């Protein structure tokens, strides 16, 4: 579970990382791009306008003439007539080198720009004259050996002037278009990243299935992004090594248990052959316990490898009946009773009869071991796929309930080995429950004692 959480978290983080950065980029782009466009466009417009102003200035210059050196210049009336209403809002003035007005197209006879710096470069200006915004330039020229300034300006408010309007309308549209394109790009990126990570998600789901009994699972390389493939290979190689070690350990457990069985049999039969019944009785519990530990070790080794086929089904009621039948003589020997109650019809569950028998048997053996003499151990089968094993023993304190199903945990106050579980029994039950997709828990019983509840998923009746 922790692994799953960590993986998810990392994926989410990478994902949001990408998306976050992308959004930052979009914000910056949508700010910078219109500004850049505005700048470039403005510069283009300005140079276009300067060219236009220059053509007008050249026209005015060609229309100028002086009758004698020092005389005021005159303008060809044909040129003069081009400047007035309906002429694209253009105006001109001619100044002498000191800035005194020589000629003007303006009705008020004022210069378009009053202050001129000395130099021989064209100088642009923007000015408000009356209600109109003028943009224009002053060009230095020489006429009849005299330095003069020819100023040309354009009234931007004139209906014929559209360039600035185009610029003003064009820009917001460019802005919206670019923002929405960028958002679309973001969406596409989200999809691409998700798609690229899908094999990783599949692999992590698969990795969750890896347990001691499913150690053969390997992560698929197919469809994995090239960047992640080396990690998948490394994980699979690590799993290979782990599997080898795990198998070796499991085989050792099984082999040791196996090898112990024949000497235990010899020992048992030697004890059985002793003439003194008291000594026999004293030795039997120990040898029986050893035999059970060996069986349980083998059961655990076997359980690690077994996978329950989803098609397997077993009758839980038959399992309990068999358990009661099997253990009743043992219980009676210890002056305890076994009672079977609950479902009267078969209870079909998903699983294997023999494993479920082992589970219920371990629960009942545990109950018999802890039940006081003269009491009843109850086995109740419920049609919802549940077995409850009830005893009148000391019960299990809440803080020990989780520990109970771990290997080799045993009630500390139990010192006698006789009839006691080897500490493996309940862990076997837990393992079998887990492999059946079921559950095991222990609760307090009303009136004293413990109730162990084994749940197994129901199956369809065959």
């Amino acid at each position, binding site marked *: 579970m922790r692994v799953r959480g960590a993986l998810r978290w990392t994926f989410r983080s990478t994902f949001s990382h990408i998306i976050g950065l992308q959004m930052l980029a979009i914000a910056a782009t949508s700010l910078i791009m219109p500004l850049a466009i505005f700048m470039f466009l403005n510069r283009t417009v300005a140079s276009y306008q300067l060219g236009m102003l220059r053509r007008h200035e050249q026209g005015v210059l060609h229309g100028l003439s002086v009758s004698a050196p020092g005389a005021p210049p005159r303008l060809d009336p044909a040129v003069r007539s081009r400047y007035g209403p309906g002429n694209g809002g253009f105006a001109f003035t001619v100044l002498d080198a000191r800035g005194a007005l020589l000629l003007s197209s303006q009705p008020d006879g004022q210069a378009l720009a009053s202050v001129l710096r000395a130099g021989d470069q064209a100088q642009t200006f923007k000015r408000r004259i009356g209600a109109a915004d003028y943009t224009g330039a002053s060009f230095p020229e020489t006429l009849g050996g005299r330095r003069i300034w020819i100023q040309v300006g354009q009234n931007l408010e004139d209906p014929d002037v559209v360039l600035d309007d185009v610029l003003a309308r064009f820009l917001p549209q460019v802005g919206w278009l670019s923002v929405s394109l960028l958002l679309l790009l973001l969406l596409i990126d989200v999809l691409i990243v998700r798609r690229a990570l899908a094999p990783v998600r599949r692999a992590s789901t698969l990795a969750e299935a890896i347990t001691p009994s499913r150690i053969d699972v390997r992560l698929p390389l197919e469809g994995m992004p090239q960047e992640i493939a080396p990690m998948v290979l490394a994980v699979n190689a690590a799993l290979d090594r782990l599997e080898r070690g795990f198998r070796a350990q499991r085989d050792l457990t099984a082999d040791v248990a*196996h090898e112990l069985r*024949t000497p235990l*049999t010899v020992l*048992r039969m030697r004890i059985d052959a002793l003439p003194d019944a008291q000594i026999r009785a004293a030795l039997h519990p120990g040898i029986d316990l050893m*035999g059970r530990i060996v069986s349980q070790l083998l059961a655990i080794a076997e359980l690690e490898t077994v996978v329950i086929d989803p098609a397997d089904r077993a009758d839980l009621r038959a399992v309990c*009946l068999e358990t009661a039948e099997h253990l*009743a003589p043992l219980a009676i020997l210890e002056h305890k009773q076994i*009672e079977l*109650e609950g479902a009267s019809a078969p209870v079909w569950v998903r699983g294997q009869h*023999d494993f479920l028998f082992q589970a219920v048997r371990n629960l009942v053996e545990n109950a018999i071991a802890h039940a006081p003499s003269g009491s009843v151990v109850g086995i109740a089968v419920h049609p919802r796929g549940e077995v409850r094993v009830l005893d009148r023993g000391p019960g299990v304190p809440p803080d020990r309930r989780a520990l109970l199903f771990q290997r080799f945990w045993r009630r500390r106050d139990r010192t006698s080995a006789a009839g006691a579980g080897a500490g493996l029994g309940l862990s076997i039950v837990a393992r079998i429950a887990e492999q059946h997709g079921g559950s095991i828990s222990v609760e307090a019983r009303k009136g004293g004692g413990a109730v162990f509840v084994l749940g197994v998923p129901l199956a369809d009746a065959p």
Partner: protein
Amino acid sequence: MRLLVVEDNLDLAELLISALVRNGFAADVMTSAESAQEALAGAQYAAVVLDLGLPDEDGLSFLKRLRQRGAGVPVLILTARGGLADRVDGLRAGADDYLVKPFATEELVARLQALLRRPGEILGRRLEVGDLSLDVETRQLFVAGRPETFSAREVDLLELMMRRVGRVVQRGFVEDQLFGLDSPVGSNAIEVAIHRLRKHLQLLRARAVVHTVKGVGYFIAEDTKQA
């Protein structure tokens, strides 16, 4: 009644023989599959006790060959393998019963006796629990050696349980055997019969007691309290 024990562990073989002899059987020991096969060819045995771990051949394949040759002799397998799959394999190979090591001597004896009592085999003439014994042929019951009179139904009930000493006889099985399928019985008819039998045994101070396993069935065992 002669038994063949096929066991390669000499300690265990020796112990098996002495335990069987103590319990009234005669037995021969063979320590390999090959010698066991020769022994079976040369003599008639009532049953075979077969250890699966033999030096020259796997016990299961030995058993399969034995069955293929048509030998019907009851076989009890002894094994150190106790897995569920192993048990199924053993029974499939033709074993009649299966005992996982380590086992109690009395368990081995009880299983062998049960094997020998099977239909078609020699029936035990006497069934015993505690100081109670039943002559199966004459249907006469003895308590501490004294002949006692029991009703026919009580004898039927006792026989059912005494054939499976220490094991539970399912209630449904008792119903079928005692009352037959065609005579449906009231749900407490068996309980009444058991109750009467229990009283009767108490009255006679028999060291055998009938236990009820509620929801499962009944079984008879030696009364350990008086022992």
